[in-house]
């Protein structure tokens, strides 16, 4: 008991060592956030500084009462759900296969990360070309002009990019399943289904939860692929894209700041809900 408590209490000098790093972290997180909050209280445009007026909560009221905004948020959520579910299924398959590879394991683990290391813009371009004009329409004989293929291109580029990292997280989870437990389950005559739900899933659940939360938040801020698809998607924009349009095309920086604060709240809520729902614990 005493040794346990002694281990957890930080030494006096520890705080002083951590303080500079903490200060930098707080500054680089809170300063932009503070600026965004301040800017969001004004009706302000980059190109007409003279017309800046104090707006109070007007920008926020405008955003949360706008159907366009909530349609965009809903569209983003549907996209996130689709991408994350497909990613998890694929990654689970890859992780199960990778677990059986022993000799070249270090190389295969690096290999699955390659898509993640590529620039998102390049990936988004490649998949858009592939699905709206290139190999896919040729193989499956469809016209790539419609909204469907534009949506498929967004999903495909996100899935392709994120499956590797999801695989690694799930693989870490699978590694936590004690082989002895699996062996005794086999000896006890457990069916494959029972082994999955009673042995593998409970041990790998924390990793699964991390994968879901991390991939959801990451997919939520997906930007490159939706931006490229914008021309072929009339009226369908993701929430980050609306923020970008408002800030960097209309140059309405006050409204854009309010949107980004609302978006941060939405994403924070999503993160908390998923964490509670999946009871994420530290696994990695």
């Amino acid at each position: 008991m005493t040794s346990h408590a002694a281990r957890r209490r930080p030494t006096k000098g520890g705080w002083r060592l951590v303080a500079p790093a903490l200060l930098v972290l707080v500054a680089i997180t809170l300063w932009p956030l503070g600026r965004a909050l301040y800017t969001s209280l004004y009706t302000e445009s980059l190109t007409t500084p003279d017309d800046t007026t104090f707006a109070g909560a007007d920008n926020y009221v405008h955003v949360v009462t706008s159907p366009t905004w909530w349609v965009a948020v809903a569209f983003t959520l549907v996209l996130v759900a689709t991408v994350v579910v497909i990613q998890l299924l694929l990654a689970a398959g890859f992780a199960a296969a990778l677990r059986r590879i022993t000799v070249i394991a270090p190389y295969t683990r690096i290999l699955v990360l390659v898509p993640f290391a590529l620039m998102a813009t390049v990936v988004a371009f490649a998949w858009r070309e592939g699905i709206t004009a290139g190999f896919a329409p040729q193989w499956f004989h469809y016209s790539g002009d419609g909204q469907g293929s534009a949506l498929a291109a967004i999903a495909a580029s996100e899935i392709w990019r994120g499956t590797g990292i999801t695989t690694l997280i799930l693989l870490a989870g699978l590694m936590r399943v004690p082989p002895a437990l699996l062996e005794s389950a086999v000896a006890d005559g457990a069916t494959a289904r029972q082994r999955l739900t009673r042995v593998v899933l409970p041990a790998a659940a924390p990793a699964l939860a991390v994968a879901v939360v991390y991939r959801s938040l990451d997919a939520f801020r997906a930007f490159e692929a939706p931006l490229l698809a914008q021309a072929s998607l009339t009226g369908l924009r993701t929430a980050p894209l609306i923020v970008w349009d408002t800030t960097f095309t209309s140059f309405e920086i006050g409204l854009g700041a309010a949107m980004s604060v609302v978006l941060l709240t939405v994403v924070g809520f999503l993160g908390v809900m998923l964490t509670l729902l999946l009871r994420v614990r530290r696994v990695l």
Partner: protein
Amino acid sequence: MVAAVPLIVSMMIAGCAGTGSASSRDLRWWVLPDGVDARSLAETCSAEGDYRIELEQLPAGVDQQRLEIVRRLSSGDDAIDILTLDTSLTAEVAAAGYLAPIPAEVESAVTGGVLPKAIEAASYDGTLVAAPWWLDPQLLWYRGTSAERAGLDTTKPISWDDLLAGAERLGSTLLIDDPDGTGLGDWVRVLVAAAGGTVLEGEGRRPQVGLATDPGRTAAGIVQFYASAGIGPGPSPDARAEFAGARGGFLLASSAIVSDPVLSAVVADIKAVAYPVVEGESVAPLSGVSLAVPADARDPDLSFEAVTCLASAESQQTMMSRSGHGATRSSVYEAEEVKGAIASSGVTLEALESGVNVPSTPYWQRVRVALRDTWLPITSVSPSTTPAESQRAVTELVSGGMR
């Protein structure tokens, strides 16, 4: 080792000071792909002055030009010494404070003998902010005998109703040239103006919007008639090519089309008359460019020296006779060189006097976006719904709302 440190530091400082190989007498002029042979004009001016002009390209679309210009100038980039600025962006770029004030002697040099509408298009808030360069009115072009066969009398102003009915009866087309994405905004604003209204008056966030009005409904009626007649897709970047094709009959475009290679096969057989009228006088949409000097230009005085040369009557005369773009100095239209090369120069000059510029508001780009959102596709335009809808959309976007 220690002795080498100052050397390295001084080399780094030298490396920062000079951007590439550019010397202080080099000017970078950002031009548009507008068919003007900017290189030869720049060389002529460089030969007279003590500077060298290098060219950089801006994108063709006005939306893209705006993004490029605002992103560069808002961050204090000094890469632009002379800027070819579209007249629909003048107010916004000036209101943002991105342009260097024009010295008095430059102002008198670049406005002497310049058409009033061209000075208006290069001014904001009563102050000249750029040197007028070229300004084009749209004209009504027709091929061969199509006007005659459509029953139109080209010696008198042609009304929209007669033109649309004539083109439909003839089974021909009426195309609307839109090389830079401003076609729809220009079409709507000029129809409203020709019917006696104004799309927008006032500079601030709460301007007077004139769409849900009788002139607005008249404009919507003309667009609806056009769409239902099936004689063209509305403003389109492909209009010139289609006009040169088998079904080409009528085209609304500036006189700069005569220098476009796309039309080289038919250029001998096309004629221009004034823009179609709604009631009374012909009113054409005016759009053009002026030459501006950014506030962050490295040497504004040198930039203004070059601008004065580029905007001179000789330079504009060369520019107009080769590209077809309407010069902003009235003396250019009397030159034999111009009259010989550009047959439509007389019609252009008349239209430049009666035409309308883009409203001088920094929010015009937002108006254009709102018009695109509500007047496209043109097949769904109706006088009973579109004016009110677009009135709402324009008011909303200009006041700072979400798109």
